């Protein structure tokens, strides 16, 4: 269905573009909210993402899944907006911003904050997995990672989550 919609969008069919928008808006908005952690930035990122999809859908390779292509654009736009707002900080600084003490008891640590405090290389795969229920293969495609690398990151992410939640096991093994 997506291929047909994309084909129509390439022809300039605004109705097809709206169909795609309806299909992807919610996930795009939620992803952008979680990645940028800011509503207005998320709106800008989502708007620019759909604009780029409309403009550049002729570049989409119909032999490949559409979702990874879409989310690559979305994630890039999130970072572009964050850069514009001077909020992209090197990973090291992000790590320093982790304020959660690892031995705090579970009931004092918010599971959301614990996840959001992770380094992006762990945070984004977790986010894609839990918000969108994507398979590891799909996430690996989106992030252009080897599946085993992704599994390793998900595993480490869960370990870190567990540490920050006071040692409580978190999530299933990759």
């Amino acid at each position: 269905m997506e291929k047909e919609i994309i084909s129509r969008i390439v022809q300039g069919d605004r109705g097809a573009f709206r169909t795609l928008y309806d299909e992807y808006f919610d996930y795009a908005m939620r992803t952008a909210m979680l990645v940028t952690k800011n509503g207005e930035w998320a709106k800008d990122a989502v708007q620019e993402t759909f604009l780029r999809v409309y403009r550049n859908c002729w570049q989409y390779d119909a032999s490949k899944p559409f979702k990874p292509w879409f989310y690559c654009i979305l994630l890039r736009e999130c970072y572009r907006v964050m850069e514009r707002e001077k909020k992209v900080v090197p990973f090291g600084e992000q790590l320093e911003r982790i304020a959660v003490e690892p031995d705090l008891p579970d009931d004092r640590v918010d599971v959301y904050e614990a996840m959001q405090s992770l380094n992006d290389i762990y945070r984004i795969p977790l986010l894609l997995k839990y918000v969108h229920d994507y398979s590891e293969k799909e996430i690996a495609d989106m992030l252009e990672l080897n599946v085993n690398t992704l599994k390793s990151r998900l595993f480490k992410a869960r370990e870190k989550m567990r540490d920050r939640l006071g040692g409580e096991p978190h999530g299933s093994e990759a």
Partner: protein
Amino acid sequence: MDRKLKDELMKKSNYPDDWKEEIWGRLEAQLDRVEVDATSDNTQSIPAERPEPQEEPLPQRSNNNKNKHKGMRTLKIWIGVATAAVAATVFLSLPAGTAMMNSVKNWFVPEKKIEIEVEGHKEETNGQVHVDDTSDYAIYYDKDRYKLVEGDGKDVITTIDPLPEPYPEVSLTIEQKADVLPEELAKQIAGQLQGEYARVDAIERVTAPVDGYLVHAIDGSDRLSEVTNVYVVSNKKQGSFVLSGRYFLEAAEGHGARFYHTLEQFEVLADE
């Protein structure tokens, strides 16, 4: 716990219902504006370059194929040329080495403006990122003045063109010693420098430009006397990074200050 995290993420990512139509309205306005602009252009030529992505002209479109005419073949050729140019522009505008994104690590801003103060004057430099996958560090350096040369086990930031004689080497070298803790390594380096420099100051614990240990050494008081500032910082594992700035006394306020600000941009990527 999986359920708990998912529920929490869904809750935290909630957004007002009216955002969807608000954004769609903005999108349509943008699309309409660009298409009107394109239609009003009698030459039907599309710029081969676009200064900003936001100003990118859309390939001229026709709703439901209503606007077919004899010139369509010509128009399609123009669109093909334009879209190829746009594709090239989009590709080139991406971070180096990424057709899409090789990994999340590549989301480092490839370049950024960095304000520094040199000899009492504030200036803005064009920082170029270098992300070292092997050593797990990242640094921004002034790409207009320096180049980063990747070597065997070490990276060297040095002047784009070598300084002429008789000026000594000006460089900032980054290397990792994976099995020596910073405090111990700083002592070893201080010992080594004792035999090379006329004066080696006591090891100093510093928090800027990096958090670690500083070994400062100077070889005389002549304007060309060699100066080295070696910072030793934790690699956040069981080892250290050694960041060695070398310049000469006369360049202390120039290259010396620039290296200081470069080191402010140094980040260890390995966590915990």
